[in-house]
């Protein structure tokens, strides 16, 4: 039982990172109807920025600064590479974001150099005893940070004018425009938010570990997360992220005991995709996705 609970907590820690990444994908998708494949690059950029800023600013200062800088970077990308493509098919814009991802990662890799770097987080691999459970402090930290950010985001969408504008634009851009909503600003804020969230996620991926050029691949797990949560659902991104994180950790923990040998030794890697497929069989629009209604 202790094993199980510890695995669940580790999974929630890992899932929190997926949730932050997935939120970025969903925010951009809701605003622009495009899946941005640039999120992995923003995640890596944020983490690398923290490794450079942590010396002068300390961890939290570096995290805030890196989040803002990555948000600015995302905003710049939106203005320069994505905005001119408004009105073009979503597929074309998605491919452009793929190009942006590669270009940004090349630049970030140049800053990263050949060695691994550290974000010098306060937790490292230290553990704490909670009700008889050995829990890594970084998992508690990322869970709390995600909780605060998610609460803030939901409050933002619920109570602020721009949040309301973003919700309106996500339902119907033309109607929102007619009501005076600046859809361009909505696009910009969406990209900036997604960039910032990716930076936070990247920093927590590196907490207790290292930043290296391959770290960006973690962001790809957010893709099955958003599909199973529902492409246009913010709660879906959070629930999907946590669910995938926990299931992945449970798969890693109990595979040797219960999984057949022919599945190989790393079932946890494919868990997100298996869960996504299973959920889609039952709910084709994801757990919380909006069912599309079309006139025929």
């Amino acid at each position: 039982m202790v094993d199980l609970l510890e695995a669940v907590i580790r999974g929630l820690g890992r899932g929190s990172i997926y949730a932050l990444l997935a939120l970025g994908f969903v925010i951009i998708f809701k605003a622009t109807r495009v899946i941005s494949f640039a999120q992995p690059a923003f995640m890596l950029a944020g983490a690398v920025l923290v490794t450079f800023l942590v010396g002068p600013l300390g961890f939290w200062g570096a995290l805030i600064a890196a989040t803002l800088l990555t948000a600015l970077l995302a905003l710049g990308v939106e203005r320069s590479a994505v905005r001119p493509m408004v009105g073009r098919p979503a597929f074309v814009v998605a491919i452009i974001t793929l190009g942006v991802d590669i270009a940004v990662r090349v630049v970030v890799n140049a800053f990263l150099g050949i060695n691994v770097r550290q974000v010098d987080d306060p937790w490292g691999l230290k553990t704490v005893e909670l009700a008889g459970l050995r829990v890594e402090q970084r998992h508690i930290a990322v869970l709390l940070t995600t909780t605060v950010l998610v609460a803030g985001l939901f409050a933002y969408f619920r109570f602020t004018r721009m949040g309301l504008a973003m919700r309106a634009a996500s339902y119907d851009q033309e109607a929102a425009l007619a009501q005076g909503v600046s859809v361009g600003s909505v696009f910009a804020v969406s990209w900036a938010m997604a960039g910032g969230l990716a930076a936070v996620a990247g920093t927590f991926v590196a907490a207790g570990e290292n930043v290296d050029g391959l770290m960006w691949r973690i962001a790809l797990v957010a893709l099955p997360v958003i599909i199973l949560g529902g492409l246009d659902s913010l709660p879906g991104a959070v629930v999907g992220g946590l669910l995938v994180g926990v299931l992945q950790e449970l798969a890693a923990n109990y595979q040797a005991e219960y999984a057949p040998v022919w599945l190989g030794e790393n079932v946890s890697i494919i868990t997100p995709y298996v869960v996504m497929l299973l959920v889609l069989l039952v709910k084709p629009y994801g757990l919380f996705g909006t069912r599309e209604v079309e006139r025929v």
Partner: protein
Amino acid sequence: MKRIAALILVAAVSLTACRGGDTTTDAGGIKTDIGVTKEPCKDAIDKAKGCIYLGIISDLTEGPFKALAVPITDAQKAFWKRVNTAGGIGGYEVDVTTYIRDNKYNPQVHKEVYDQIKGNILALAQTLGSPTTAAILADMKASNIVAAPAAWTSAYAFEDVIIESGANYCIESMNAMDYAADKYKPKSVLSIHYAGDYGDDAAAGAKIAAEKLGMTFSHLKTDSGADKQAGAIAEIIAKKPDLVLVTTGPTELATIVGQAAARGFTGRFIGTSPTWNPALNASAAAPALAALYEQSAPWNNWATNTPGHEAMRKALPGVTPSDGYTSGWVWSYPLKAALAKAAANKDLTRAGLLAAVKSLESVDYEGMLPATAGNYKAGAAGQLKMTAFYKPDKTAPTGGVMVQDLKVGKTAEAYKLEGPCFAKL
């Protein structure tokens, strides 16, 4: 008519793309073909000398071994510059800078860039990675292209075109097992490794040694990426082996050791040589690594006092010490010896170089490896079987201090290499 013209054009382009090609004999009576020109090298010290072109295919930008591969490549540039400064080989200087390509540690990319440069080079001064080199091996054999590997798989003992140095992964693991058996008396061993010629070879060596030493053996294949180690960590926690052999990249090592220790594991870890990166001494896993981890190595580190190490340090002033440099430097000696022998035989063709490799009975590593090293004529029987051990130390130049000098363990000593070890996993 247009079709014929196009064919002629393609043929002309193909021919001019190759440096050399036809066998010719120079003024000194040396036969040459591909990758050797009468024209001087781009950065020639003596413009009167011709140029031998060697290619380098390495993991230079985004693969898991770039922290090793970049200094390996820089050391090889410095090594061949030293050779050129000392007069070159057989009236030629050696160029290793024109045909440097990045493989991203991807076999497909490795093959692509090899195809791009193979028409212009005599040999490869470096082909990094066992799985990547496997992608070009058949073509190397067909084209008589000799290569110094940046890898240590035991399969190279059976490949004439590969001119390897130091103990292979299989032997290194056997030595690690003997070392651990003497020092820690483990009863069980778990090998965590990448799939392929690198990881499987090390795991196979551990398996063979475990049978000899009466230990229980198990192994788990893991993927590259810190995020993909949850299964490996869970296996360690569940099985609680006395010894874990890790054959991965550095980031995976830090994740595995750090998180297993955080979950209460107190057994020992030994890493295969490419698994270490001194930058890990600054990571969150550093305390766990310092307490539980040791590193096996096929030769002694950067700070060692031998004429070869001193020459290397002199040729690389101002660099941050790394054993990537040491490896790049060591790996270059056999190719230098083979080129010198081929030149002495008046045959610097690809076939001539391969013949020279097959006839080498020893290589002068300037003390970096013992005098018995470099017996390629003896084939697998001539393999060097020595391994050294280091432990992490933040204050040491390359992040580790020696705990045991180069030595052959009893298991490796008695083991007769009859085929690639990884086939026995």
